């Protein structure tokens, strides 16, 4: 008897549940449409605030990506469009799923970061094949064209390194240690290659320990400085490395010119105190802002930007001249 009562209850619950599902509410998009002729794919232009763009990135919503997000949000607010933020936290599979969901939802444009190009490329290809405009950002400067993306918004490591090289030359350094905090990381190596391209003197590129062991990083830089007394400048390819170099220089007992990459509270403080000369900033706010603008322009006016080349957001520099103002902006979350 007990068993039948239970079954009955379950059955009743199921019936009630199915009766309670809501119908899909459809909203019709209003607004004039114009059709572009002559192109192999027909693009429907839509004007006004009914555009939805999806930013599908490998963001972990940390201190770096939260600024990108702010850029996208501000751009969407300024243009009056909808922006959907899809962070995949370094999971390429999730990123692929998010892209496919965006395609299915009829997205008007995708902003995608190609941190794992091989995994994500097929999904991006699907989007461009379906006629959805795609702008890549942050990573993927070598792959965006092949996938049919409009352009790439970001900083290329080589150009960033070249910028740093010019800075060091201007500051009068003669031999720079390019200190990397990871081994076999192409991005970091390219920063050092760029540095060597434009720097007038010698460049020594060395791995100095993981961020996981900051005391080892400090000791290794100090050891290198003591082993090679010609080195008078250090470029840290990450914000932590640059800060470690300060103590290392003291241990070696001489003045060294220090440059870093990316922004952190410690590095801002050090630039203010005059211990670090500059840091290379890739201006990730722009990496969030520009894709929305570019996608809006393409959707409303069929404009393309870049002329087939990527749109560079860096190197921007933070040094003693602008550090005070940048600090305020960092606290506001836009740099």
């Amino acid at each position: 008897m007990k068993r039948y009562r239970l079954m009955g209850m379950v059955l009743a619950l199921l019936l009630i549940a199915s009766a309670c599902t809501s119908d899909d509410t459809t909203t019709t998009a209003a607004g004039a449409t114009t059709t572009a002729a002559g192109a192999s794919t027909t693009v429907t232009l839509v004007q006004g605030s009914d555009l939805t763009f999806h930013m599908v990135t490998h963001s972990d919503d940390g201190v770096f990506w939260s600024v990108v997000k702010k850029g996208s949000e501000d751009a969407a607010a300024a243009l009056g469009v909808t922006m959907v933020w899809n962070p995949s936290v370094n999971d390429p599979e999730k990123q692929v799923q998010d892209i496919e969901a965006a395609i299915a939802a009829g997205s008007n444009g995708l902003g995608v970061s190609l941190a794992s190009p091989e995994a994500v490329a097929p999904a991006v290809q699907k989007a461009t094949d379906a006629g959805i405009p795609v702008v890549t950002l942050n990573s993927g400067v070598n792959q965006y064209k092949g996938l049919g993306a409009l352009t790439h918004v970001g900083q290329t490591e080589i150009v960033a390194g070249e910028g740093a090289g010019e800075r060091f030359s201007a500051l009068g350094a003669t031999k720079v240690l390019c200190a990397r905090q990871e081994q076999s990381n192409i991005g970091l190596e390219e920063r050092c290659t760029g540095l060597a391209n434009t720097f007038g003197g010698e460049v020594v590129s060395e791995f100095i320990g993981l961020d996981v062991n900051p005391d080892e990083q400090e000791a290794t830089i100090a050891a290198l400085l003591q082993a090679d007394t010609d080195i008078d400048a250090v470029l840290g390819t990450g914000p932590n490395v640059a800060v470690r170099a300060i103590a290392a220089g003291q241990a070696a007992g001489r003045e060294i010119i220090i440059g870093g990459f990316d922004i952190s509270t410690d590095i801002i403080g050090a630039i203010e105190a005059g211990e670090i000369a500059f840091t290379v900033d890739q201006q990730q706010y722009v990496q969030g802002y520009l894709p929305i603008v570019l996608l809006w322009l393409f959707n409303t006016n069929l404009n393309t930007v870049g002329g087939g080349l990527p749109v560079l957001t860096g190197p921007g520099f933070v040094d003693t001249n602008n550090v005070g103002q940048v600090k305020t902006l960092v606290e506001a979350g836009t740099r």
Partner: protein
Amino acid sequence: MTAVATKDQSDSDPSVDERLVYRGPIQRLLTRPDIGTLVGAVGLFLFFWAVSDVFGIAAGTANYLDVSAGLGIMAVVVSLLMIGGEFDLSAGAMTGATAMLVVLLSKPQGEFGGAGLSLHIAVPLSLLFALGIGYFNATVVERTGLPSFIVTLGSFFTLIGAKLGFAKLFTDKVIVEGLDVAAGYEFWNAFFGATWIRNEHLFASRDLTFAVLLITGSVLTLVGLLELSFTPRRPTRPAGLGVLVVGAAAAAFGLRQLVDTDTVAANWTYGLVVGAGVLVGMAGLGAWKYQPATAVSARGGPNLGRVAMGLVAVAAGCLAAVRLDASSTKVLGFLLTVQGLRAILFVGLVAVGLGMLFGAARRGGSSFFRFVVSMIISAVLVGVAFLVKGESQAVRFRSTAFAVLLLVALVNAGTAWLRLKHLPRNQAEPVADRLGRVLSIGGLLSMFAAVAVRLLFMTQAEVDATRAVITYRISILFFLGSAVVASWILANTKFGSWTFAVGGNKLAARAVGVPAARTKRTLFMTVSGAAWLVGMLLAFRLNSVQANVGDGNEFLYIIAAVVGGNLLTGGYGSAAGGAIGALLMAMSFQGIPFSRWNSDWRFLFLGVILLLAVLANRYVRSKAEETR
């Protein structure tokens, strides 16, 4: 293979068992699990010192000691745990976790702030947290019977996730900052962040103190070792004492003159006087105190082949040193510079050659043959000394190496003479043993003090010559302290015995009443407590802690423990070995940038060095246990 005799067969004094093959204190020392590692560490130090000018001086020492301190404190406790038969894979992540916790707890409140507690509360709280995790690890292992490897792997992942999560939760960043503005910072910083800047503590008579301590120490150690190696003669022969006094006086006089004069001719003359004095003194000591040798039968045939091979190896090594260009940093193929290859070939071949000669001198052939081989070894050492003096590019290294090599050649010759003329020990002699032990230990302590004085203090001249600021952190004291305390506990306390028992055979230990669960729990909590200490040292040093600090270091701790002679399966090993293993690893890590080797190959170098260290360890032990 029964070693058991019935009662009526043995009527000897139970404290001196004459059926034992005599294993002197020296041999017993060599069978310790950590001696091989020590040999490896010393060898590595000499190697890097030869290749890089800076490595062997205070600036270099401060550098790798700093790195070894953080690694070493954990390596010592992980060794303890390994001896107890367990692993803790969450130890590295724990160091970062406690560091981050103390910053989060004491950060001033605000939008991206922390709990705003005073450090007087935050620091003990983080200790409680660490001990709690240790207790948790131990209890889960005990209750479930799962391998500790798995359980602590679970804690490891929990910790790294929690670290990142809490960092983001509180500060929206992966790094937490602001320890230096917390309440109570000055007080705790004096404890965890204390540094000793050498340049500010000058010691005018440092070199004199160093020389006196070193010479006294070497003499004491030498006499002590001789006491332990030869059969005492009863009664002693006063004539020998006279010769000893003459020799000692000559050596002292020559030394004094060496210090005072500085011309090349004078140096040579007085150097020879010192040498002659030492030899005569040693011969006199033997004649005075030691039993003359009886007719010795040959132990196997003379090993001429080995002698020949040894000489060839040494010659090859010297050839490499002379022919290869010392200053060339040309990269050969992909791995080494010419400079590095030269150093490796020279040191390696000479070491191998000397090893073979030494082997030939120990066994095989008549005592006279062995004496001749020993003299050949001394000659080789003298030759190598002059070669090093002439060819080595590391300025500071070569003068010290020259003196040391000559001294070793001298002592070796003297010992060879004594071995020819006097009877080696074949049983325990309580009086001589005690004297020898006291003298050796006193001598070693004196030499250690000499080196410490040399490395710890600077003279005004040095300060003027270098701009480097040499900083020693308090973490080094903690490192030394933990190694000493852990070794003492293992050797001398009940808990130490129980640790060995629980790791060797837990069920047998439990059956005799050893509280196995409680012992293991204490060990786990010791590991996490030490992780708290390392975390505090890190936090007060950096004032900001990134979420992933310490992750992955647990494997380095285990490697250091294994290199130090600890068995992975437990029940055997040494905490001091773990400390030496950590020192060895730190020297490898830091020696590479000092020698300007390509850092891309650093893990290859580390792997090779570790393999060599482990092999050296086993080799020394097997050689020492051979006569069992």
